[in-house]
Structure formats: C-alpha cells, structure tokens
C-alpha cells in the first residue's frame, strides 16, 4: 500500500466521487480515473496474478498494451474477462474482480508454481505433456486449463445490443496526439471529410499524459484549442473510445467504438459497442510509440512500471506509484520522468542511467551512470533495487524505460514487415503506399516538433499546408539495453505469458532460432497483448544469442486485431432470430390451427406431422398416410422453390437448364425435370409447367431454391446472354398445397369455379389457370408425389390460409386430414421417388434410374460430361429398394449393404441405405439404397450392416417402387 492520490493536479474531477468495488472491497475514485488509476490512488498496486507462475502483478502501463492488470469487469451476463484495468473508465457502481488466483489475490495456491519454476522453462508444455497421447484430452488439457486460465467468461446471455456501421471519409486519422491533431487539422481546414479516431476515453493522446509546451501554452491547452476547432468543422468527425483494429483491402479499416462501456448499463437506445467499417480514401497512422520495459530480475514486481506510465498516472490521474521512486533507463526520457515526479512532489531517490553520459536535465535528482538495476526485491511490493555494481537502494517504486517502439501494427496488417533502424533502436513501419502513411512517433519521429510537422505534412490535402506551432523538445538520446544479464531473479520479456529472457537463448540452443518458432516454443508474444511490450526485446535477445542482426531475426507477423475484440462487436445485431430469421409459409396459421408440429428446414418452419391425442410422430404420420391413401389429405408444399420464367426464348432457356426438353411441352401441361451440373452430376429436380407459349413456372426442391436461382442467373448472363428470357423467384408469392388421395378430385371440385373436373378437363400432368371460391385466381396442377390421384393447388400467398380452410371444409365428408413432411416422405419412399438422400451431389441421372430423361437432341448443362465412361460404369451405385427379409427387422438410414456372406468391413462395402421409412401400407420398414450395379441385383439377399449402431440384419434388394408398382392409384 504505497501508491497514493496526489493532493492536487491531474485531469480528474475531484468534485465527482465514484464508488466502485474490486474483489468485493469498496473504494472511491473520481470521474476521469481509470480502474487502474483509481486502485493506485487507493494504495492498491496488486491487481492480478500471472498466467504460469501466479506471481503478484500490478499495472505496468497506463494504456492499451497492459499485460498484467487484467480483470473480470462487471457481473452476470455483462461480465467481461481479461479487461485491461488501464483502459477501463471508472463509473459509479463499477464492479471488478481479479483473475487467475485461488483462493484469493493475496494468497494464491498456484504461486507454488514459481518455486517449481525450473520445470516451467521454454517449451514446457511440449516437454511435459508429451505422452501418452490418450492423456491429452482427459488429463493434460483440463489440467493446464484449470491451472493457467485467464479470466472466465460469463455463461449467461449478453443482455446488451451491438451495432455495425459504415463510415466514409477522405482522411482517417488514427491517434489524436500531436501528430494526429495536426493531420486532422490540415485536412479539416482544407474542407476534407475527416475522421479522427482514438482508443482513449478523451482525445489528445500523449498531450493528456505529458507536460509539454506548444505554441506558447501547455500541450494540453493547445490540444483542447485544436479539438475545439475540429469540433466546429462540419466535415470533421471526432471518435474517441474508438480503437482502429485492422487495416483491410480497399483501405477499409475496422474500428470498435466503445459506446457504453464507460457507464454501468447502456442507455436502452444505445448499443454497448459499435463495429465500424471505415472506408478511407487516405489514412494517417498517428498511433505514437510504445515504451519498452527492460528485462531485469523482478521487473514484474507491483510498483515497477514503464516510466511513461508513471508520468501518466501522476500528470493525468494525480496518482503516484510510490513515495520513493527509482528511475532506471537507457535513454533521456528517464530524466523527464524524474522531473515530472519531482514537480508533483514525489520523491525521486535516484536516476540510474545505463549509459556513461547524457546531456539531459536531471533537475537536481542524483544520477548513477553506467550502472543498471539487476534485481528488484520485495515480492508483492517493491522494497529495494540491487544494482549491477552491488549497490542496494531502498525504494517503493521503479520507473523503467528501455526505449520506444513505434506502433506499426496496423501498417503491417497486409503482410509487409517493419524494418529495423539501428540509430533509433526501433522497427519502423514498412512502405504502405500513398493511401496509408505512418506519421509522427509511429513513423520514428521521436521529437515533438518533428511530430507536429510530420502530422501537418501527411494530413495536408491538395498541397494546402498549415503553419506548424513552435514547441519545446525533450532530449531523445538512447543506447541499446535489452536484458541485464547480471540479474538473479526472473527477468520477464512477456509478462502475460510469463516468458523470461533466459527462455530465448534456451530456445535458440534447442534449435528454435526462427523467431516464429521461438515465439511458439517460448509463448513470447502469444498472449492477448500479442507482445506489444516485449517483442522487440525478445528479437534483440534472440539476435544476440544467435549472432544475427535485428533484421535477420525479423519480427513475427502482425495480424488483426490490434487489441482483443468482443465477439458481440462482430456479431452486431445478428443474433438469435436476427441471425437466422424464421421463414413461415403462407399456410403456417392454418397448419398451427390443425395442431402441426413444426420442424426447422433451413430457415423454414415446415409442418412435420399433425398429432392427435396420444400420438407420437410415427403414429401420427402413419395415420396421415392411411387417411390420405384411403380418402384425401392436404399438405403444405409452399416451401418448394418457384420461379416464374417468361420470354420468347423461355423454352430454349429451360432446355439448356434441364437435361430433358421443355420447349416441346404443350401449353397447359407440366413435366418433371432433372437438372445436371456441368460435370454431369444431378443438381436438382422438380416439375415445370407451361402456362402460355412464352410463360413457364418452374419448381425446385426446398433446399436448392436459392442455388438454382443463382445458377439460372449465371447460365443466362454468362453463358447464353442472347436468350430473350426473364425470370424471377415467386416462392414467397404463392401458397401451394398438395391435395392427394382417391377423394382429391371430389374435394377440389367443391371449391373450383366453373370447371367440371374430369380426366378430360384436368388430365394427368395438367397445369391450368383457374379460379376458386368465386374468383380467387389459382393454378391447378395434376401432379403426384404420393402416388395417389393427386393435385397441387397454388393461390396467391395471402389467400393460402383461406384456401386451405375451404379445402378442409370441402373434404370433411371424405375424412380429409392434414399431412406433414413425415407422411409426405413415407409416401415418396413407398413409391420409390428420389429426394435429398439420393440427390446428394454424387449421383448421375443413370444412378437414379432416370438416364432415359437425358436428351440426345440438344445441348444442355452437363450433357457432355455426363457421357464420361466413369459416370456410365454399370458397377456404379444406383438406386434400389431395400426391405428386411424378416419383416420385424428395422433397416436404418446410413447402414451399409454387404454381400450375404461377406465379413462386415468397409472393404466389402456394396453401398448404403439412403432413405428409410416405416410403411403403414406394407407394415414394415422399407428403404431406398444406393448399391453397386443395383438394378441387376433385385431379389438378392444382402446384409444391412449398421456399424455405428451395431446392428446387422438381412435385407432384400428390390425395385425402388415398393407400393402400387402398376401406378393404378395415380390414374384412378
């Protein structure tokens, strides 16, 4: 408990007190605080436990790269794990909990891992959990997950909304520090549409955190002036709390706006977060630079922080990291840190400068040169530092600076690699072309004056420059320092994954010299912070260990996203029924009245069976079949794809699409059609009717409706562009119902207007435009999928329920029943009609027993490829019927067909059962199967082997038509 709130200063609103809780304990903070700054102000430096060793950890940064201070934020469905306390804006009532500790943050049993740490070296996971293989799933993985998990996700649904939005601009400026402000100002004043996005809660970037002088005033006042001007320009959009997370093709940037994360619960009309796709003519990367830690023993002790973080906590949040601070660095920024702390009344014990000399102003703070911090002692809080020369200095906080890494991530998202600058000791962004340029510190401009000028130049539009204000520059000299090898304790490179400096030479010795391999072997850079702090140190240590240059070692790949993104932001509003809308047929209400059980088929809700009291699905479907075959049944078939085709060349077009011919179809007639893919395999089937010389109506299977439409569009536009034809999907516009059974005609007759129905007026395969119920337009087709004398009636969708109810009334005297998809399927299997199980993307027309449909007189899609030898091999699997020898046996779909005396194995496979049904007409299980050379094998006794369920029964191969082979009922 050594950190504390400064008595004055900072950008916090001391009048606004906010109450919050951390690990169940209540604290107060102020508006303007982050969770991390408020905890520090309350003397809390211990905020989490590390991943592998469970070491005590506090915040090391004051920003987005934070690896340590990760908390579970909020509770219940709103709980969010691995949230960076340094980025969480404090609000009244905030609830957070530390992670990765048990039973408590102060006393963590897992910390024993630290004592056994010699076994946790690089490649630990690979070396320890190698064998036996069977242990992985059941023992090792759960063990690792329990011991080394980060935060836990809520299992409750997220109650909040998320949105997606597009934005377009002439210039996107990423980052609102001095560089970004100048870039936005230059383009904004030129009248360009500008978006200025910054991940921070307030705009101003480093000018909110640092004491600077610009244009004769403080950097902060200058920034506020520029922001006021930008806010007054109608062509400029300011987007605080917006992290640009990725750079994509077409200069599209992904960005997440945290709309409501800074309040307890979102306004009911606001989303929690909004995912933006920003399409920018040009973009400027003004993301600044990230300070690097130095690897020395105990550099993870709570109270050890980046120097810039310690300045930020003091300058912006009026929170001091300790009462007696040691500043350690390899560059001049150590000195400004000492000056800032001193100005806030914080005692700085000493500046330890690894270099022999520096011209920077220490403001009277003693400086020890040419020495380094080797170890920090203290465990849960800093107590002292040991220097490389043996000096021991008591202190309660350490500010460290190992130099600066330009934040080049976004510039590398398309695969280009950054390049090493040996003078700046930094990777600079690759050349990304004119549409996206890095500026300021992100481009290696380390002086404030350079940043202002670079921002102005890169933001300028049409050569219209703006004047650059004068400013005071900080010294920026640096000498390399990555790892203090004299350290005794653990010197961390990757804090979040607990990878230490020693792990890297070890990985190199074991052969993992490639940086991508070393990354995975040591897990350096693989945590949620993706190595933002430590990667450059890791590369430098690897370079030294292997005698290579920084460029030769190179960086690992920078991938989107810059910081972790909640799934909710990507899902946006597309959850639940907004992700998968419910598609109801026009007859849905009628079916519901009849007690239908609906099943989801794709998006459709289809009436599946209509149970009466006490019936299960099989009893209901069997009753529906018997009632239909003995009287009349009514089935909703509206989900079939319906496509209206018109034009002079409509027939010719259909001739191209189907393997059989439609140009010769008589007006007023329907025909079954089979479509092939260009490779000769069957793609879809359905009936098509000709209503007029130049007018057809096609139907497709329910599943392929959208696909067939897209294929038609391709065929017409790309293959046969000169055909005079037009077509549109009318699936939604027509309700369609099958009326099947010996009493179907008598039933329909009662609602059809002015037509005496007979085999002459409505012959088999007739397709007529009629009217029903005194003037409702309708289409009447004499089609049968059930094998019964049957019709399909189509009416405009809005008349669907009315027509179905009228049919139920008309058929009451014949005992009409509604039947569902289950009964429909039973009847088609009884009749041997092929459906989805047989039209499965591997079968030819010949396999389905429909080879004769393929025309030899015209060109059509699939004609040539269907003639290939392999597709006409008599040994191909083709459709047959299958029935059990013992009628009490059950045949299962998916079971394999074997010769009667063969051993059950896939080597002896002859085919498989593609569809099965309980036939109430035959009182047995029947099926369709695809069997090698099946048509020649009717009557053969085979084994039906279901290895999955462990059953094996004898079956007989038969004609696919199990019932009414003479089709007497069809024409009855």
């Amino acid at each position, binding site marked *: 408990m050594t950190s504390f709130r400064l008595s004055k200063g900072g950008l916090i609103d001391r009048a606004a007190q906010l109450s919050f809780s951390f690990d169940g304990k209540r604290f107060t903070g102020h508006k303007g605080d982050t969770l991390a700054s408020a905890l520090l102000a309350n003397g809390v430096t211990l905020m989490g436990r590390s991943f592998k060793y469970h070491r005590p950890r506090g915040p090391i940064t004051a920003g987005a790269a934070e690896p340590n201070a990760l908390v579970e934020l909020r509770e219940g469905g709103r709980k969010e794990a691995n949230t960076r306390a340094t980025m969480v804006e404090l609000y009244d009532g905030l609830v957070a909990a530390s992670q990765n500790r048990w039973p408590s943050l102060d006393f963590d049993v897992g910390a024993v891992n630290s004592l056994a740490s010699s076994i946790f070296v690089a490649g630990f996971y690979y070396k320890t959990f190698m064998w036996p293989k069977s242990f992985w799933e059941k023992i090792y993985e759960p063990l690792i997950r329990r011991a080394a998990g980060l935060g836990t996700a809520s299992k409750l649904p997220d109650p909040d909304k998320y949105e997606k939005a597009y934005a377009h601009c002439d210039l996107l400026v990423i980052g609102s520090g001095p560089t970004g402000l100048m870039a936005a100002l230059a383009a904004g004043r030129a009248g360009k549409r500008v978006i200025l996005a910054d991940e921070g809660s307030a705009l101003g970037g480093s000018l909110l955190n640092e004491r600077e002088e610009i244009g004769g005033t403080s950097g902060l006042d200058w920034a506020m002036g520029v922001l006021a001007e930008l806010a007054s320009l109608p062509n400029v959009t300011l987007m605080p709390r917006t992290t640009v997370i990725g750079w994509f093709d077409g200069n599209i940037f992904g960005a997440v706006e945290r709309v409501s994360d800074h309040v307890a619960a979102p306004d009911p009309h606001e989303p929690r977060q909004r995912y933006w796709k920003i399409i920018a003519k040009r973009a400027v990367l003004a993301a600044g630079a990230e300070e690097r830690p130095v690897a020395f023993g105990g550099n993870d002790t709570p109270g050890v922080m980046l120097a810039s973080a310690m300045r930020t906590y003091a300058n912006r949040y009026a929170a001091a990291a300790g009462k007696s601070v040691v500043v350690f660095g390899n560059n001049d920024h150590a000195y400004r840190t000492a000056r800032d702390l001193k100005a806030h009344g914080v005692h700085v014990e000493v500046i330890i400068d690894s270099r022999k000399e520096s011209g920077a102003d220490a403001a009277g703070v003693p400086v020890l040169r040419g020495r380094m911090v080797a170890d920090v002692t203290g465990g849960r809080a800093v107590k002292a530092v040991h220097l490389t020369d043996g000096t021991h200095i008591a202190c309660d906080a350490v500010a460290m600076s190992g130099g600066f890494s330009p934040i080049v991530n976004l510039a590398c998202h398309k695969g280009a690699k950054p390049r090493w600058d040996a003078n700046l000791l930094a990777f600079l962004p690759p050349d990304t072309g004119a549409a996206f340029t890095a500026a300021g510190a992100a481009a290696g401009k380390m002086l404030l004056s350079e940043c202002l000028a670079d921002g102005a130049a890169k933001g300028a539009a049409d050569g219209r420059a703006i004047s650059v204000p004068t400013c005071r520059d900080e010294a920026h000299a640096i000498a390399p320092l990555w790892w203090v090898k004299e350290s005794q304790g653990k010197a961390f490179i990757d804090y979040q994954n607990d990878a230490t400096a020693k792990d890297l030479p070890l990985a190199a010795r074991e052969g993992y010299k490639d940086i991508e391999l070393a990354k995975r072997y040591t897990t350096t850079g693989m945590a949620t912070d993706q190595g933002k702090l430590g990667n450059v140190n890791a590369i430098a240590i690897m370079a030294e260990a292997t005698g290579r240059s920084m460029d030769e070692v190179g960086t690992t790949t920078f991938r989107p996203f810059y910081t972790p993104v909640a799934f909710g932001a990507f899902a946006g509003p597309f959850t639940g029924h907004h992700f998968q809308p419910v598609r109801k047929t026009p007859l849905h209400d009628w079916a519901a009245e009849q007690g239908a059980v609906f099943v989801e088929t794709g998006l459709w809700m289809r009436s599946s069976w209509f149970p009466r009291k006490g019936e299960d699905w099989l009893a209901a479907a069997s009753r529906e079949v018997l009632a239909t075959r003995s009287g009349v049944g009514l089935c909703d078939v509206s989900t079939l794809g319906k496509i209206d085709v018109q034009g002079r060349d409509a027939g010719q077009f259909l001739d191209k699409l189907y393997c059989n011919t439609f140009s010769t179809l008589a007006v007023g007639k329907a025909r079954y059609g089979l479509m092939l893919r260009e490779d000769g395999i069957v793609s879809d089937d359905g009936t098509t009717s000709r209503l007029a010389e130049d007018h057809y109506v096609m139907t497709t299977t329910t599943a392929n409706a959208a696909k067939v439409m*897209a294929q038609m569009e391709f065929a017409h536009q790309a293959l046969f562009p000169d055909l005079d034809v037009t077509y549109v999907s009318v699936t939604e516009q027509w309700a369609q119902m099958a009326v099947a059974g010996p009493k179907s005609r008598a039933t329909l007759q009662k609602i059809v207007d002015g037509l005496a129905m007979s085999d002459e007026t409505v012959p088999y395969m007739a397709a007529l435009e009629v009217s029903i119920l005194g003037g409702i337009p309708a289409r009447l087709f004499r089609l049968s999928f059930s094998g019964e004398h049957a019709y399909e009636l189509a009416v405009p969708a809005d008349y669907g329920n009315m027509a179905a109810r009228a049919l139920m009334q008309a058929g009451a005297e014949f005992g009409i029943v509604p039947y569902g998809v289950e009964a429909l399927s039973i009847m088609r299997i009884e009749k041997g009609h092929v459906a989805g199980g047989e039209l499965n993307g591997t079968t030819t027309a010949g396999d389905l027993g429909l080879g004769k449909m393929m025309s030899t007189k015209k060109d059509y899609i699939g004609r040539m490829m269907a003639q290939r030898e392999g597709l006409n091999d008599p040994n191909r699997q083709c459709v047959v019927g299958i029935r059990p020898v013992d009628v009490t046996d059950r045949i299962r779909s998916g079971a394999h067909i074997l010769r009667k005396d063969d051993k059950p194995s896939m080597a002896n496979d002859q085919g498989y059962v593609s569809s099965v049904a309980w036939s109430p007409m035959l009182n047995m299980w029947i099926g369709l199967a695809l069997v090698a050379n099946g048509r020649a094998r009717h009557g053969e006794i085979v084994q039906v082997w279901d290895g999955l369920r462990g059953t094996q029964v004898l079956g007989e191969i038969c004609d696919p038509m199990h019932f009414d082979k003479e089709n007497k009922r069809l024409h009855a």
Partner: protein
Amino acid sequence: MLIPCPHCGTRPVEEFTFLGDASVTRPTSNDPASMEQWYDYVYLRANPRGRFAEFAHHSGGCRAWLVVTRNTETHEVYGAVTARDYARAKGAKA
C-alpha cells in the same frame, strides 16, 4: 475489398459470391471430338499471382453476375463489367 458494380456502384465484398476464373469459355460443340475442350472448361482453372478476372455474383445486391478484375497478390480491384457484356465481347472476338 470494394467492388465497383456497374449497376449499384462501389459495394463491399460481403455482398458478392465468387465463382472463380472467368477466362474459361463454354464450348459450343457437342461432338465427342470436343471432349478435351469440355474437360478444360469444366476442370481447368487458372490461379495466377497478379491480374485475374473472376466471376462474382452480386447476390446481396442487383443479382447481376459480374467479371471482376483484381490483383490476387495485392487485392487491388481494377474494375468490373457485367458477365453479359464480358460474354458478348468475348463472343465478338471469337
């Protein structure tokens, strides 16, 4: 990635469905001697690094099939024409 649809203007790639190489031309002959051409048409597709013309369906827009020319290496989009105009232009050349 943004696709300039001749009907709808510049639209995001999410609205499109891609079908691959547009350089292939469907043979017109049904003569068995043309089988080699058919094999090439059905199975052979170029997969070049660099400039590439491919079919794209504006399935979330005007539903026109387009031929989009883009660079497979840089993902730069050079332009798009309707598949109908593309087919007719190719037919005129042949």
